[in-house]
């Protein structure tokens, strides 16, 4: 229910998730650390390019970018004024500094570039593949397994939540700012936890019945194809260029 973008069939959709994960990770790190405008603009362009290649529908893309930019907007309310430096102009008694505006602009570009990359990755890879990729990239097993279980049961539990919500609705419940409301929500959370706890017990039993001895196996095999190799080399080159432009 949460993955609405993964059904596409772009070039990016066909790529090996391990490669995508590594590239997005390295890209994010370089962008997070970068400061120069050329580099940041380059990263934004690259992000846009990848999102276009992944054929993410524009409306969905914008919808996903809105939350991030709300926080950025919030910061724009402060940074231009609070950042020390050369005043550009005055708004009443407050000086808008050149450095402050630059800084806020930088943050805006960085955030959006990184988000574009993440959206392209997420939009083109089912979450389960991501889990398998994490496994093969030697992320500790326990974390990967936790990731799988959490994701698997979010859906079951979310449905339980919706049904409980309907139950309180048909009994005339209208949320207000009062104790009765908080108590009701606390009970719902409590009920979800209790049921999840007992479900966990049953799931573990089901695993035991099938001979579980503590190992979880992964059947998914990925293999790098020419497309993958070419794409990774291209992206790595871009990332290295960004790094060189920034720090050399």
């Amino acid at each position, binding site marked *: *229910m*949460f993955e609405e973008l993964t059904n596409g069939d772009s070039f990016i959709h066909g790529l090996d998730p391990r490669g995508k994960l590594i590239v997005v990770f390295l890209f*994010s790190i370089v*962008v*997070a*650390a970068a400061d120069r405008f050329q580099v940041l603009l380059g990263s934004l362009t690259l992000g846009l390019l990848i999102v276009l290649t992944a054929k993410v529908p524009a409306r969905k893309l914008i919808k996903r970018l809105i*939350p*991030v930019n*709300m*926080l950025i907007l919030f*910061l724009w309310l*402060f*940074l231009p004024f*609070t950042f020390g430096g050369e005043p550009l102009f005055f708004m009443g008694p407050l000086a808008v500094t050149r450095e*402050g505006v630059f*800084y806020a602009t930088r*943050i*805006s*570009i*960085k*955030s*959006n*570039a*990184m*988000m574009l990359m*993440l959206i392209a990755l*997420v939009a083109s890879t089912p*979450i389960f593949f991501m889990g398998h990729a994490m496994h093969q990239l030697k992320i500790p097993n*326990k*974390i990967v397994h*936790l*990731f799988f*279980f*959490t*994701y*698997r*049961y*979010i859906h*079951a*539990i*979310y*449905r339980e*939540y919706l049904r409980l919500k309907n139950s309180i609705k048909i009994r005339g419940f209208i*949320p207000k*700012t009062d104790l009765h*409301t*908080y108590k009701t*929500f*606390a*009970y719902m*959370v*409590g009920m*979800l*936890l*209790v049921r*999840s*706890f007992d479900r*966990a017990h049953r799931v*573990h039993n089901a*695993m035991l019945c099938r001979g579980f001895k503590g190992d979880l196996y992964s059947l998914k095999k990925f293999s790098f194809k020419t497309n993958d190799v070419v794409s990774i080399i291209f992206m790595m080159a871009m990332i290295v260029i960004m790094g060189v432009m920034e720090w050399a």
Partner: protein
Amino acid sequence: MEKFFQKNTKSNFKQLIQKHSYYFKAMHISEGILSPAVLIGGAAFAAAGVAIGLKNLEQKEIPTVGILSAAFFVASLIHVPAGPVSAHLILNGLVGLILGWKAFPAILVGLALQALLFQFGGMTTLGVNTLNMALPAVICYHIFKNGLKAGMGKHTVIICAFATGFFSVLLSGIMVGLSLYLTGEAFLPAAKLVVAAHLPVMFIEGILTTTCILFLKKVRPEILEGDHVS
């Protein structure tokens, strides 16, 4: 049949986050804002916490911790009215009380999924965000857990549960503010505002955590005493 069900819940779900997505960000600092030093520091401490959590986590507990973590994920999507606006539940105090140090890996996974599913937070901020939510949970767990033990008076339970909900959100707010402040002094007013925004939420979380703990004690006390708590 399920397939269609999925679709329906998705649309409800979207409405839910669209309407109230602003709150998420108080707890999830977005990508691109924090300085590399803060990101690295946060990631290092988070990694240490996760390592301790994983050490305590036996293979056979993974379904329990995973499924509880899923329950918290869902609970964090619930929005409750807080005066004129509405707030999303954080419930990290409750996570701490139930999972102890395992709150670190559980919250890490929860945040990773939020980054992947809704793009709240992201890869480089995963460490800081985990630390900001999990550390207060673990601290409160260590201070207040004894008050929840079986045989404690009801008042003690209520006080400790409330304090856990209250302080874990307060601490988280402060840590989010601190993350911003450490990035640059220019963030100070914004950081203050972030902490202030957490104030009403602290009370709500205190009340919710208390009621929820009383619920669990009555209905399934094993959850609070289980051996999945380290």
